[in-house]
């Protein structure tokens, strides 16, 4: 996983390909993921990487995590430049960043957003997962399997309720809930840890993944 070095052309090309069918890095709304990737770029991508540039301009306005008052006149040149290009290309876009009112409003909104973000530390992005753990056969001891899964401990991981769901031929799979902090735990990590119990676990799937 990963885009590679986002300060280099290769990394940006990967990002561009990734964003061709996605509006945001993860999911359908701005999230921490967008802010993190945004900060990894050294500036706006070139115009030939159109998806990356579109995403960059969008996140620049909506998703920045950094203290925006530190972003002086040089910085506000970048979104304005993007706006001007749009005006030239496309008559329909009236939302230009040229005039006074729009600029003043934008500054006000940016300041509000920065203030909101400054209060943010209290909120941690969490997700609720439903994992399907499948055993080798119907003779596998599911109670042991569950115990093994629950021994996996990590900062930001909380196991929840579980149940056994029959899948046919007497085999039952374990469906277990977990609440994870997005920043600390990745699904790859969970998958690795669970499939380490090779004696009991044949495979693992994520049945559901919901943001809280």
């Amino acid at each position: 996983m990963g885009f590679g070095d986002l300060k280099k052309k290769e990394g940006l090309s990967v990002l561009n390909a990734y964003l061709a069918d996605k509006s945001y890095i993860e999911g359908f709304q701005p999230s921490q993921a967008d802010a993190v990737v945004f900060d990894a770029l050294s500036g706006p991508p070139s115009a030939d990487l159109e998806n990356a540039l579109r995403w960059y301009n969008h996140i620049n306005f909506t998703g920045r995590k950094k203290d925006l008052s530190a972003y002086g006149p040089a910085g506000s040149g970048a979104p304005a430049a993007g706006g001007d290009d749009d005006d030239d290309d496309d008559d329909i876009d009236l939302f230009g960043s040229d005039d006074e009112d729009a600029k003043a409003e934008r500054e006000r909104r940016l300041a509000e957003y920065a203030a909101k973000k400054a209060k943010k530390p209290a909120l941690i992005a969490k997700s609720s997962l439903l994992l399907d753990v499948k055993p080798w056969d119907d003779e596998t001891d599911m109670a042991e399997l569950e115990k093994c899964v629950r021994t996996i401990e990590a900062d930001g991981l909380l196991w929840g309720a579980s149940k056994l769901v029959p899948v046919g031929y007497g085999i039952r799979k374990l469906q277990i809930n977990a609440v994870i902090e997005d920043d600390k735990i990745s699904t790859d990590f969970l998958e690795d840890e669970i499939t380490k119990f090779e004696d009991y676990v044949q495979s693992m799937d994520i049945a559901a993944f919901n943001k809280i």
Partner: protein
Amino acid sequence: MPIFTQPHQVNMEELNNLASYLGVSSGKLVLDAKEQIPVLKAGNGLTVRGLVSVAKQLVRQSETPELKGTTAEERAAIDQWLEYRVVQVDRSLQEKDVSSVLRDTNAYLSHHVYFVGYQPTLADIILYLGLYRIFEDLTFMEKQKYVHVCRWFSNMQSLFANKMSKKHIAFQRNKIFSGTGH
């Protein structure tokens, strides 16, 4: 290929979907038989006619009136896209020529995430509802051609489809079809 149902019937359904998404009652929404356009009798004697006006009225009554635009430029841009919907999109369905609509929206969305501003607005919603019928009939290969509209559409349906009781349309990025050189 399903036969397109009469546009005015579909408009009624869309307005009801919009109303249920906004959480407002569509009240007395009827079809004017003579002119074949939707008419809303919103309380206090106000009568609103036509898809765009009714949609805006429903938004006004909802808890999210900003959907029709907060600044004058936003409102104007949204109005333009709403007009585009009625004039271009619905007409293209009548004439069975959807490629120009798809081409235009695709080009616009190549450097915009949403049609107006940086959040979904009524323009996005009405265009989503309007383009839904077009998208229902596209093959995967055709969808691949218009990458940006598909991306936007996929974004829209994750936000709105469930609340508007609309089925999700599937998109698949298939490397076999890529002729657009990503």
